[in-house]
């Protein structure tokens, strides 16, 4: 028989400090992503390989200097990979394993559950883009410093918009279906969604993928502010997806 000193479990309830909860939760989210081999393949290895391929090989027509254009598109792809596909798959399996219910039963406020995930995703996106940017510089990308604030802004906006879409997908369906759909959508967006190559079809510009790639191209290649159009498209997708996701996301 196991015995416990009297008073061991004497009630002393209370909520932890908000900054600490946010920090620990966001760190957990980021760490789990970075530790997951499939996530690394999707969010780092494939974008890195595509960046190098697009910069060095002229299979896909792209304005010169190729590396700048390629960097812009691959930054967009990296964000789609982690914030949308990665997030959706992770959420699908997190629900399967009951972690959302577990955390929802703790003293962690609901808004913090979302904020922690967003912060974790932003950390991952920042690391991805930093790694890709260094690679692009090595490949000869001329980084227009004036574009930096826009790059940061678009990184945040892109992560939020694609994160909301990822939650919309991963929060409602079964994990296996999420896994399949999230990868298929990623591939479709890459090929014909205005990421790997510009698709001269009107409605493609209304896709969040094309909008993010175009907006990043202004900042990454020319160091100028993105156009109002692509930013509006991103915001609209993000707002609609976010609003829908709050209704459809289930804990398990």
């Amino acid at each position, binding site marked *: *028989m*196991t*015995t*416990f000193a*009297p*008073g*061991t*479990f*004497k*009630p*002393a*309830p*209370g*909520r*932890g400090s908000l900054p*600490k*909860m946010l920090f*620990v*939760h966001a760190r*957990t989210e980021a760490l*789990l992503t970075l*530790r*997951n081999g499939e996530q690394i393949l999707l969010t780092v290895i494939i974008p890195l390989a595509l960046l190098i391929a697009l910069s060095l090989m002229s299979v896909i027509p792209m304005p010169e200097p190729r590396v700048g254009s390629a960097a812009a598109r691959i930054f967009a792809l990296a964000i789609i990979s982690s914030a949308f596909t990665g997030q959706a798959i992770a959420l699908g*399996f*997190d629900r*399967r*394993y*009951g*972690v959302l*219910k*577990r*955390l*929802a*039963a*703790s*003293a*962690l*406020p*609901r808004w913090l559950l979302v904020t922690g995930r967003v912060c974790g995703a932003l950390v991952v996106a920042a690391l991805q883009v930093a790694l890709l940017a260094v690679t692009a510089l090595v490949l000869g990308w001329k980084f227009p410093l004036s574009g930096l604030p826009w790059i940061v802004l678009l990184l945040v906006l892109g992560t939020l918009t694609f994160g909301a879409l990822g939650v919309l997908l991963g929060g409602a369906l079964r994990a296996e279906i999420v896994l399949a759909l999230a990868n298929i959508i990623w591939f479709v967006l890459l090929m014909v969604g205005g990421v790997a190559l510009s698709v001269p079809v009107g409605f493609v510009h209304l896709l969040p993928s094309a909008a993010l790639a175009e907006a990043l191209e202004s900042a990454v290649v020319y160091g100028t502010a993105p156009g109002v159009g692509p930013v509006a498209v991103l915001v609209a997708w993000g707002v609609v997806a976010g609003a829908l996701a709050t209704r459809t996301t289930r*804990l*398990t």
Partner: protein
Amino acid sequence: MDRGDRLGLPFVSPNPQPAVEVSGLVKKYGSKTAVDGLDLVQHPGTVLALLGPNGAGKTTTVEICEGFRSADDGTVRVLGLPPGDEALRPRIGVMPQGGGGYPGIRAAEMLNLVAACAKNPLDPKWLIDVLGLGAAARTPYKRLSGGQQQRLSLACALIGRPELVFLDEPTAGMDPQARRLVWDLVGALKEDGVAVLLTTHLMDEAEALADNVVIIDEGKVVAQGSPAELTANRPDDQQLRFRARPGLDTSLLSAALPEGLKVREATKGAYVVEGLIDPQVVSTVTSWCAQQGVLAEELTVAKRSLEDVFLELTGRELRS
């Protein structure tokens, strides 16, 4: 000021607010009524067991108390608050049925994360060791065995030093040793003034742990009281059990016994004599067995178990 802020004092308020109070609770899933007008009251610092077969409505009831499901009708108050109230969650500990971690998170990391949500958490390292998870502390959640996941889930429920814990089938999938540990923990929680509401379909668990047992079936309370009250023997309501060769003709034994005693072969080779069991009855049974040329083994005179109570009330086996 509520009691939770007066730490260390036993809960002896003259007019104690119940830890859990449920009245007229109704929950329907489509056309199926899972909980059908359920009432229960749990006093602070006590252990209450919801006992019933699978599908009786135990988990639904608990999940409504935890704030995970909404009630269709009736009222529920947990520590005086409506379930799901943000102010309530730091004060309760929850062990859901199955699951409760990121697939890739290590056991110790998961507990640390939940500990970070509490103001005065127990020491996670200590709790990991107490629950026998020391060797699995670095194992990813998805590779933990079912029993290990259960123990981690229990740790997560206790880490924040709650006033009230909900344990939904806490020993499901555990080996006997771990099960014993959970029983000891529940005892220690109660000693320290923590109220525990647990569900189980194991009567020995309910009998061993609970101050009060609420037996539910098809969403309704069929009986409630302390285990002693529920199993209280009427003088003529005792059992003599023994094992012998299967297939003995029980009508012959019945004829040899005084009027009013019932004999049946409960399961293959396990015989039960019900009624007023006195020394004469025991003697009659053993000598009748001797006449049949069989040895009556494991002969015991037993009081009713909660299982018998359940069978009597519902006409069905608890474990079915």
